[in-house]
């Protein structure tokens, strides 16, 4: 089975700094592979390890994608090759534009049976790209997939919803978005990381995929940190009976 797994490069949440005017600074942020996209890559690897085939990784974005540590990071998790569509136009891309570029890239890559996306990106978490991508490629698409079993020219998949699990038969080619409980992503070994450096990386810009001049369909008006809720901040220190007694006295009306 030929599988394409999509991923997004995101800023490390813990490095995002809230400035005094409540805007956000990413100046000190490390970039990383979206946490939920690791599950997508792992899901692809488990399928080809069981049923044969090949996994390719694909991402679209701006110059952050050039980060060689992250390229290796993706390839060290198993994919045989990596496709990147890099363009300044894709900075802060919205889900429509992202899906549009992924569609064009996948058409250029050519043959595939299954595209796997994560549940959502770990920065904006819109959970939209998989559904949009499937629709644009005009093939079956579904989200919430927590188990995949290949079966000839289709897959049998489990889909986890609020209080039920659906067992689905999905004809291929298809696009699925997988949940975080589908697997536990592997930790690459030193050998994997060294091997990753030798794998092919194919880089395109927007014009290479025939999409010069495409733009976003949404406009961001503001992005501001929420205002702080005032708290009492009565803090005790220590573990002695006396200190815990004091804590208990102040919180007893909340607990009892």
């Amino acid at each position: 089975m030929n599988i394409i797994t999509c991923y997004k490069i995101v800023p490390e949440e813990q490095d995002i700094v809230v400035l005094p005017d409540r805007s956000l600074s990413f100046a000190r942020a490390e970039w990383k592979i979206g946490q939920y996209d690791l599950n997508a890559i792992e899901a692809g690897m488990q399928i080809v390890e069981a049923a044969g085939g090949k996994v390719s990784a694909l991402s679209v974005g701006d110059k952050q994608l050039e980060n060689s540590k992250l390229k290796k990071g993706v390839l060290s998790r198993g994919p045989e090759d990596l496709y990147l569509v890099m363009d300044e136009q894709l900075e802060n891309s919205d889900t429509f534009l992202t899906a549009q570029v992924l569609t064009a890239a996948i058409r250029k890559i050519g043959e595939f049976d299954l595209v796997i996306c994560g549940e959502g990106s770990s920065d904006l978490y819109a959970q939209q790209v998989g559904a949009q991508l499937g629709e644009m490629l005009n093939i079956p698409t579904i989200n919430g997939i927590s188990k995949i079993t290949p079966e000839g020219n289709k897959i049998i998949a489990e889909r986890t919803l609020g209080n039920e699990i659906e067992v689905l038969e999905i004809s291929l080619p298809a696009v699925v978005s997988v949940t975080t409980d589908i697997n536990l992503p592997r930790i690459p070994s030193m050998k994997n990381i060294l091997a990753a450096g030798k794998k092919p990386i194919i880089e395109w810009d927007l014009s290479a995929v025939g999409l010069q001049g495409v733009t976003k369909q949404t406009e961001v008006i503001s992005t501001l940190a929420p205002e702080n809720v005032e708290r009492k901040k009565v803090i005790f220190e220590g573990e002695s009976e006396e200190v815990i007694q004091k804590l208990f006295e102040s919180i007893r009306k909340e607990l009892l």
Partner: protein
Amino acid sequence: MSKVTKVWVFAEKNTALAQLCAGGRQLGEEVSALVLGTKEEAEKAVSYGADKVYWLGSSKQDKMLEDYTATICELLKKESPNLLMMQASKRGKHVAGRLAANIGTSVIVDAAGIEIAGGMIQVKHMVYGGAAFRVERALGKTTITTVGPGLFNALPEDNSRQGSVVEVDFVEPAGSVKCLERKSKKGAEVNLSAAKRVVGIGRGIASQEDIKIVEEFAGLIGAEVGCSRPIAEGVNWMPKERYIGVSGAMLKPEVYIAIGISGQVQHMVGVNQAKVIIAVNKDKGAPIFQHTDYGIIGDLYKVLPALKELIKTNNEN
């Protein structure tokens, strides 16, 4: 607040539909509900506040809700409403995304506020794991957004309201996803969002075994137990349903007690609507202490048992 002309709403469940209809009344001159279900259910939408109901027909055994995407899409292209609000369920988000792809827009998901300013629809939603709220607008004719519970309060049902029901022909979907079987999920569904008291467990807990120490404490004060993301999605010590924060549960309890939780912003957004926050953490510099009403800098393995004893003694007297 000014209004837009046409607002459409679509939900899987009646409670959500009633809330979306009420929201539609606030935002639009004319509210249309898309309803998949019996004729009675379609008519019910009028009593929730819809002026018009697009009745997609009764749900069929061999069809999934997702199979109606093409039907809705055709309607959407023909009528171009200003705003389509969909229930923020997994299904709702999936269908919304597919519709958006067809009409050339992005869905603005999980609306925390919808406003109309100068005739333009602006949707506020959380980004970067709760570090910020973003206000965004769609540039096309139709804005599609998903709305979670509680953004709008349902109006009292009004059976005297008048509205029209338009029957919509089913459009056969192109792709094939067939539902072979539905199983109910094992384990009771937890509803942390409705709990009055919640105890949250973070990485300060040393092992999965030790979770029961916290569970006992929670049991004593009648609290539900939740956790931070690493506990549910890192070490997988607790089910995902119990994870509090962005992409997890958002709480509104009377009291939230954070045990060994550092207080990263992604977690805090899920709990900062709590009336009172109490924290136990041995790290003096933990950000949680900036967001706490009462806190103790100390080892949870010493503090919790001592607190338990005090509560027990108190309960006996």
